[in-house]
């Protein structure tokens, strides 16, 4: 008979580490998807996910069980991703001179006729990744959660541990920061 999550957690807390494996198996896809939003290299993604699981194992005592385990785990995952962003602030203020040919073409198409530039194109995906990489850690986190994952301000507040007003302020600043990066892109490409 398959054990419930609560039973598995209780078993881990009494010293049965093997009971942690089904939890890792069940929730790893979600944790990997979250980590891939913030890290591009697969080795970095694996490091983040591994850290999330090691932290969750050592902090399992603090899981009170009044909310689903998944919520608790995702909070830990988002905070670990944020720590990763703060520790790897690379490529900031980078130039847009090394855009690939498809990226340049997509931008030219957008400049000529915005409707014809498809958001499903790989070039658009690569461009947004470049832009996100140039944003500050709090701005990138809040834009990802709010605009890309479509989460509410309250949800973001719970995930990040920031207050609701702070999330709103950071979201406002993040949009402005993104606009500034896009303005630089437009200036470098079309002036």
């Amino acid at each position, binding site marked *: 008979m398959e054990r419930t999550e609560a039973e598995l957690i209780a078993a881990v807390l009494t010293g049965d*580490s*093997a009971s*942690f*494996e089904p939890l*890792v*198996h069940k929730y*790893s*896809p*979600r944790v*990997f*998807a*979250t980590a*891939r*939003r913030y890290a591009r290299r697969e080795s970095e993604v*694996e490091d983040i*996910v*591994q850290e999330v*699981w*090691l932290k969750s*194992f*050592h902090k399992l005592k603090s899981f009170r069980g009044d909310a689903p385990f998944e919520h608790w785990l995702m909070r830990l995952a988002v905070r670990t991703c944020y720590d990763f962003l703060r520790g790897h602030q690379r490529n900031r203020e980078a130039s847009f001179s090394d855009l690939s040919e498809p990226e340049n073409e997509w931008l030219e198409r*957008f*400049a000529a006729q*915005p409707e014809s*530039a498809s*958001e*499903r*194109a790989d070039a*658009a*995906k690569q*461009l*947004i*990744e470049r*832009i*996100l990489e140039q944003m500050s850690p709090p701005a990138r986190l809040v*834009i990802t959660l709010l*605009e*890309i994952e*479509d989460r509410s301000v309250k949800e973001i507040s719970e995930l990040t541990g920031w207050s609701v007003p702070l999330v709103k302020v950071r979201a406002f600043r993040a*949009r402005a920061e*993104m*606009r500034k990066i*896009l*303005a630089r892109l*437009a200036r470098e490409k*079309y002036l």
Partner: protein
Amino acid sequence: MNLEQLQQKLLAAARANPSSERVPYAFEKRILARLLESPSFDFSALWAQALWRAAAPCVALALLLSAWSLIGTGTNVATDNEELSRDFEQTMLAAVDETEEVW
């Protein structure tokens, strides 16, 4: 170029391409192996626990030493003052004493 529109388009591109949920082969086994090779040894947690445990005895010891030094210093001050005044008097009156002895 309309930057607002470009921003919306690129965010839509990010939404349209959700990140992959692919998990490397036997990842959970790897995690478990990592957990078992270092059985819940968290150095910082142990250090924090030891510091918290040491806090109460340290406070008690500090209070004890403060009280002792205050009481001890209190008596010493009195003794020191008496000795000082005696020495001062002897030094000041040394010449007079010597005169008395001569005469």
